[in-house]
């Protein structure tokens, strides 16, 4: 009971529960909307959720306005995220004496935030699903397939391999951009304009990716982030050839497609019940109807001969009810849109057409596709050629001597040293930097809570016991993290290194003057 089943090698648990449900004694099970692993004994599930609920309630005595974030115990960390009002997601990770299992709470919370954001993009808010169907079958069914598919990226055998201190120079929940020249920017601009007019008078939105990097977007930052994350997870050429080793920071290990068999994913009845409500206009409404709509199911996604990435979501029994392109709900843009994915070599185009404008459903989508092929192909080829010519490869953003991470939280953008280079850092340096990041996370959340309302600048520069320098600098909301292993012993050396980096690669954003 309690934090784990007590068995060695439990790995991680992830649960989603609704505190508004199961309030009567004996009905506690009704709170649980999702639990990973699905074969975890019910009593243990109840025990985990019982502890979490107890601590949430207890901490509210003193902190009514702030959510419980973490329970840290000797052998486990429970990381919390209140995804929606009273709907909590908790990730439980096991520690052991081996420092390899050293986590950063913020990084783990990032996983919860990411999976919820993606879920909402496809199915709408969990609360809406629950309101629509109070028995929660639908919400449970979708959560079960979606979160399980999402977690498959972290699977290593039966366990989950979550980001550890070794990933401290990565930032989940940010977009990685490709830096392009002015000339290419004009080409991209021209492509975006053509893409925007694929549906005649109705403006289409688009994202253009090169490899796993974002080239352009017409969506607001939050929506861009969600779609970009999805693309990197499943749609880019690397993602589609998923079994190859990837340098993408979002993917870990090889995939094991564990399809849940839990009773909560019982589907046919609910699918039948909801399949006919095709005129649903609520966020994500249409996708909710199809129990087998699994946008993260890797093997159902493939690139067709026409260059479009299509899905094989529809199973024989419900064929016809599933559109060729899924409908996504974009919270920031406040619109539901059909997603069309087109790929040419290393370029991936995500084209979004407002669902409300597609009166004839699949026919309209076919029209959009035709339009894209007829009018945008040449632009796409040109842009791809130019980007490929200028592309420096995986190590394009490597800066000799530095191992760094730059984050702009407002724009939700980051850039980091290539993972292959980060692995050259010693364990001690990575542990120290991970610890420093944890401290900076706390400082940032404090600054966020303070009344002053302005960004607080701070800087920490540590010479660790292995003589490496680990550095964190936050200036006007932008963040720079750095590890320098081969350098001078004086603080002045470290300061100068930061200064040089800032002047050369950050337009002086972190420079002293």
């Amino acid at each position: 009971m309690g934090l784990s089943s007590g068995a060695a090698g439990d790995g991680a648990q992830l649960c989603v529960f609704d505190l508004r449900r199961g309030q009567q004694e004996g009905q506690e099970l009704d709170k649980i909307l999702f639990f990973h692993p699905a074969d975890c004994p019910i009593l243990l599930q109840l025990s985990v959720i019982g502890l979490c609920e107890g601590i949430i309630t207890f901490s509210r005595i003193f902190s009514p306005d702030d959510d419980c974030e973490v329970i840290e115990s000797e052998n486990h960390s429970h990381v919390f995220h209140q995804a929606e009002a009273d709907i909590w997601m908790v990730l439980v990770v096991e520690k052991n004496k081996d420092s390899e299992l050293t986590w950063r709470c913020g990084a783990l919370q990032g996983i919860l935030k990411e999976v919820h954001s993606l879920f909402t993009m496809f199915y709408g808010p969990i609360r809406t699903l629950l309101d629509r169907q109070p028995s929660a079958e639908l919400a449970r069914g979708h959560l079960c397939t979606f979160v399980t598919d999402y977690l498959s990226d972290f699977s290593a055998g039966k366990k989950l391999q979550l980001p550890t201190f070794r990933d401290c120079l990565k930032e989940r929940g940010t977009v990685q951009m490709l830096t392009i020249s002015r000339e290419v920017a004009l080409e991209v601009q021209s492509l975006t304009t053509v893409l925007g007019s694929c549906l005649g008078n109705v403006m289409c939105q688009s994202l253009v990716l090169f490899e796993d990097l974002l080239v352009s977007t017409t969506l607001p930052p939050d929506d861009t982030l969600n779609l970009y994350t999805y693309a990197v997870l499943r749609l880019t050429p690397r993602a589609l050839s998923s079994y190859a080793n990837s340098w993408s920071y979002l993917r870990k290990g090889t995939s094991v497609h564990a399809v849940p068999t839990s009773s909560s994913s019982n589907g046919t009845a609910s699918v039948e019940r909801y399949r006919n409500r095709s005129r649903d206009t609520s966020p994500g409404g249409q996708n909710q109807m199809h129990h087998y709509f699994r946008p993260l199911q890797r093997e159902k996604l493939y690139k067709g001969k026409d260059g479009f990435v299509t899905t094989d979501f529809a199973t024989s029994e419900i064929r016809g009810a599933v559109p060729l392109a899924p409908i996504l709900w974009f919270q920031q843009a406040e619109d539901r849109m059909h997603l069309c994915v087109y790929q040419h070599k290393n370029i991936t185009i995500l084209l979004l057409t407002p669902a409300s404008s597609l009166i004839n459903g699949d026919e309209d989508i076919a029209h959009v596709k035709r339009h894209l092929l007829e009018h945008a192909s040449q632009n796409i080829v040109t842009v791809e050629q130019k980007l490929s010519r200028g592309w420096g490869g995986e190590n394009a953003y490597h800066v000799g001597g530095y191992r760094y991470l730059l984050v702009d939280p407002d724009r939700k953008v980051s850039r980091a040293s290539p993972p292959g280079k980060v692995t050259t850092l010693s364990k001690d340096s990575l542990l120290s930097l991970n610890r420093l990041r944890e401290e900076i996370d706390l400082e940032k959340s404090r600054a966020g809570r303070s009344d002053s309302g302005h960004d607080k600048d701070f800087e920490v520069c540590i010479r660790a016991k292995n003589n490496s320098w680990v550095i964190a600098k936050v200036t006007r909301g932008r963040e720079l993290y750095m590890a320098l292993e081969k350098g001078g012993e004086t603080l002045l050396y470290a300061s100068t290194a930061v200064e040089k980096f800032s002047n050369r690669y950050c337009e002086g954003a972190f420079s002293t003057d």
Partner: protein
Amino acid sequence: MDPNPRPCPLPNDSHPEPPEKRLATLSLRSAHLPPDFAAAEIQEDDDEGYLTAASRGGSSSCAAAAWKDEVEGLDDDKDANVGPPSPSSSGYAGERGSSLASSAGVDDPEPQPDDWARGKKHVDEDDASASWRKRKKHFFILSNSGKPIYSRYGDEHKLAGFSATLQAIISFVQNSGDHIKFVRAGKHQIVFLVKGPIYLVCISCTEESYEGLRGQLELMYGQVLLILTKVVNRYFEKNPRFDMATLLGGTDAVFLSLIHAFSWNPATFLHAYTCLPLAQSTRQAASAVLQDIADSGVLFALLMCEHKVISLVGAQKAILHPDDIFLLANFILSSESFRTSESFSPICLPRYNPMAFLYAYVHFFDENTYLTLLSTRPDAFYDLKDSRSHIQNVLSKANVLVEVQKSLRESALHIEDLPADPSSLSLSPPPQLSEDVNSQLLSSETAIGGPAGLLHFIYKSIYLDQYVSSEFPILISNPKQQKRLYKAYQKMYASMHDKATGPHKTQFRKNEDYVLFCWITQEFELYAAFNPLADKMQAIKICNRVCQWIRDLENEIFIYGAVPSLLGRYMRD
């Protein structure tokens, strides 16, 4: 001085009571005894063994309980005179303890000295009170059956339900074979420490680090042990519903003083003690006479001025940990009865031996200066009294007590006095400090605070387990500012000494309040605070000068040849 000390007239050394019995009797009697126990009463207790009421008569429980009764009955005028002394560089008086119940709000208003001295704690509050919930920092001690033992705010009895909840949380996790360390919710942190049958919890929104708060709970537990020893665990083994609160009856002031120290006394996180600056010859005179005594059967002899050590000596192989010095001083300084007469009290030094009592003879020579003689013998009162008399004579003749008062007034380290001579820099500074900087003279005229914006520093000698800190400049004269700086130091300390990755060698940290530097070498740790606009290179030069300055003064500000604590600890570990 009390002309009639009332020690326990010790009957039979040969039949000491088992510790269990001591505690049992203690729990029954502590509440009834006057501040200075009367001989008659002691004799009554003789039947039950000398260590019962007799020994505890002057002991923590009794003395403090009586003191509590005494002070709670006082009017405000009298109250104002009660309470621990105010260290010169701490901002102590302005920060005392808690505030009025009407002061609800996350920001406790700066409490009045009277509140603190009264030793309580808003007893009208409980967990249902909005004001109680908004207190910035709670401390709880409870038993593993959920019985409240101590709460910083509110009446323990009214907090029984709350205490049971804490116990349930801890036990729930324990039942899964795990141990809960902390919970974080926004700016609140709930830190747990389990020590056998005793649970300690801190609920804080002070933005201190987990390591810092945990260290404070460790000291709280140490203070419990100092009063009761670890033998108290046996009572819980026999009776899980054992009510330990009665044993600690009247010690609220001790815990409040301890909690208060967390925000002003660097000893609480540095795990080092500080000395009163004295001329070497004066200190030698004091040390010599203490050494004489140590050679005649005293385990430890400490001469202290407030929380600063003047001299301390120990019997051969006896090791005194800085935390024990801190807890002992806190206990003595927060218990008024020690000041009014010489006292003989069983106390436990948790780092020395958590299982056994020592016997402390305490005598105040004046308002600030006091002698503590620790013996293993419960019948040592008269011997220790004679020793004290001898010490007092020698100290008077050597003018030590006058020098102590003088030092208290004059000898603090002021950052403005930092020598300007840059030539001293050539003397082997630590490698990290050896910046190749143009040796232009620093302009103190343009500096804010000390030279180059220096505001404050703490220097800890690692071998000596001693630290020295500068006085606060006018810029940090406000207690709130001082508290903020100490918190910044605490964070820096926790970061430098991180268990998994530390100790680090150097740290530079800059925020909107300060520029902070820390260097750790094999010899010392330096923590220095500068104005946030301070220039990095200039600040590094100043740190070099501080280190050199300390070396120049080391014979006056540190005690050499004191109890070999560090070395001893290594040997013991």
